[in-house]
């Protein structure tokens, strides 16, 4: 029995079938290319839109961040300026009112003691040659008279007990007659360190009747 292959399909039919296959392949290929290109274009467009939106959002946040940073820098500079100005102010101003120091002296006087003279002078370190430069102090002295040596010692002791007064020294004590009575004249020196900080009594507390404006009767 012969095994020859016999093609019974007419050539025209075969050609049409092959043409149909090619057409389907072509259409499929074109569809795939169109879908791929459309997909890539859509993806690129969506990505561009998304990054655009993110950029706008982050730009707003970054602007806020930069604004906060610039505000913090401005605040820091203003604070530094004020702190420097206050530091310079402290170099110039007195740390306490002189009136409160005067009140402190007056309150150190026991009864029967009067002041005849008082002196306080500002020194920024130039007057005392061996002193460190720029060390500010008040150099003070008082002169007056008291009934007894004990009263004179009380004045010096009370002044020493006040935190503002430093280096309180009884410079002289001598006998004298005041309005016909025996009294002790005295001279006290003191310094006040203006670079220290301490509490002083408010000047309103001073009592004028205890000052040298009203010299009290000695020994009364």
């Amino acid at each position, binding site marked *: 029995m012969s095994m020859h292959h016999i093609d019974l399909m007419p050539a025209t039919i075969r050609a049409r079938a092959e043409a149909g296959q*090619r057409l389907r392949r072509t259409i499929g290929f074109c569809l795939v290319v169109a879908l791929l290109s459309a997909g890539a274009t859509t993806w690129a467009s969506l990505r561009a839109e998304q990054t655009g939106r993110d950029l706008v959002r982050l730009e707003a946040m970054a602007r806020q961040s930069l604004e906060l940073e610039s505000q913090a820098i401005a*605040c820091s500079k203003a604070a530094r300026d004020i702190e420097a100005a206050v530091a310079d102010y402290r170099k110039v101003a007195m740390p306490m009112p002189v009136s409160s120091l005067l009140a402190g002296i007056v309150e150190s006087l026991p009864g029967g003691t009067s002041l005849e003279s008082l002196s306080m002078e500002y020194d920024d370190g130039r007057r005392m040659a061996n002193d460190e430069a720029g060390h500010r102090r008040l150099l003070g002295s008082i002169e007056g008279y008291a009934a007894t040596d004990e009263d004179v010692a009380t004045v010096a002791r009370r002044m020493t007990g006040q935190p503002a007064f430093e280096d309180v020294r009884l410079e002289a004590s001598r006998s004298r007659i005041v309005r016909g009575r025996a009294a002790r004249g005295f001279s006290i020196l003191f310094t006040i360190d203006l670079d220290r900080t301490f509490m002083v009594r408010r000047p309103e507390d001073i009592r*004028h009747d205890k000052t040298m404006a009203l010299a009290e009767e000695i020994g009364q």
Partner: protein
Amino acid sequence: MSMATGERLTILGTLCAAALLMWLSAWPDWQAAETRQAQLLELERKVSGIAQAEESLTIETRRLSEAREQRDRECRRIPPAADVAGLMQALSLEVTGDDVRDQTFTVMDRSSEEAGRFRVLPLRVELAADFSSVWSVLERAEGLSRLVRVSGLEMSLADQEHPTDGAQPLRASLTLDVVYAPPADGDSMP
């Protein structure tokens, strides 16, 4: 035109259309997205510090507020000019011949510089008056809204040889340092 040629042309047209689409739309969008992505990374780095910036601003704002409070609490005004006339007017007492016998103001020297930003003009106030009047001038000088430094105070009884009872006349000399900051030196107390 044969069938095969038509198919080739179709494929070629499709490829050209796809390439054109990619060239005109996808490529520019992709490039824009890439550029924005780089910008986003940079911005994210900045934005990540926003919490730190807020914290820093809070700290600096508090520091500024405290500095202002300290300045307002501690410092008196330092004017741009000495205004000695105004100061004399503020410290002037009525010379009655009774409590106040004499009051003299003298500018002692030219102004000098202190602390780099201030000028200081020494002014002496001499008084022949009772203690209350001297005290009043001292309190007024120290109670002024502007900074005036009392750099010297001398008081003595007018007649030390014959002290008497009651209010006695005093000779007093107050040295006041008038502090001011000329505008050329900048803002003295911000």
